């Protein structure tokens, strides 16, 4: 009788631990994805601010240059900065990110997206220059 009770108990404890480990791994992957997309969005925001600062320096040029966010987001240097920021943040969060980072204008903001561990993660950066002129 005692052996049966111990057996059932051990099974319950091991089962609980296995399920817990899966739930926690899921939470860690979710967190790594969030860290990655936030890092990528911050890198894109830095590039956007640098772009605006560059335009400000040319404020008196003729013709006056205008912000081209679509071109900035398609620039391989911007994309690589966002990707490497995501890779670094995910690695420090205990996960490997190997995908790509997409960034595009949506309304008045830059939307940054990436897929990690089967999930879509999104972050947005306010960007007035995204509004169609």
């Amino acid at each position, binding site marked *: 009788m*005692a052996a049966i009770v111990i057996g059932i108990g051990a099974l319950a*404890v091991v089962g609980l631990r296995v399920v817990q480990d899966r739930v926690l791994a899921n939470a860690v992957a979710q967190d790594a994805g969030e860290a990655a997309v936030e890092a990528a969005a*911050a890198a894109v925001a830095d590039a956007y601010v640098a772009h605006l600062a560059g335009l400000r320096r040319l404020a008196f040029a003729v013709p006056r240059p205008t912000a081209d966010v679509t071109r900035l987001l398609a620039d391989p240097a911007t994309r690589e900065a966002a990707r490497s920021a995501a890779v670094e943040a995910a690695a420090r969060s205990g996960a490997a990110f190997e995908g790509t980072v997409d960034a595009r204008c949506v309304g008045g903001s830059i939307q940054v997206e990436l897929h990690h561990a089967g999930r879509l993660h999104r972050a947005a950066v306010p960007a007035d220059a995204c509004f169609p002129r």
Partner: protein
Amino acid sequence: MSDDRGQAIVEFALVLPVLLVVALAIVLVAELGVARLALQRATAEAARAGALTNDDEQIRGTLAATVAPLAPERVTSAIAPPRDEPPRNGDPRGSLLTVRASYTLPVPLGFVGLPRFVVTASATRRIEWTP
């Protein structure tokens, strides 16, 4: 008939301690799971607060505020890199900030020498704060 009943009571008395230990183990494992998830979520929130403010007090405050249902006084935390070391004492924007936390699970009957369970979690965020 009365002999059979006596035997059942003796068997139950023998099995009862085992049953109690098994029930305690199941409750402990469940508590452990709750603590691991809560601590993971809280460190993520604290690291996010650190990324936005670069302020240790804000980080620890956020950790304490989001660690429920765990008792904040049982949570210890470490922030890396420290506030008074580079890059955090200069312009840290773009560098990474890691918050580590550990929680000692209160064990029922701990006074009889049951082992202490310590749960740990960490989270990293890219610092967005600028001086």
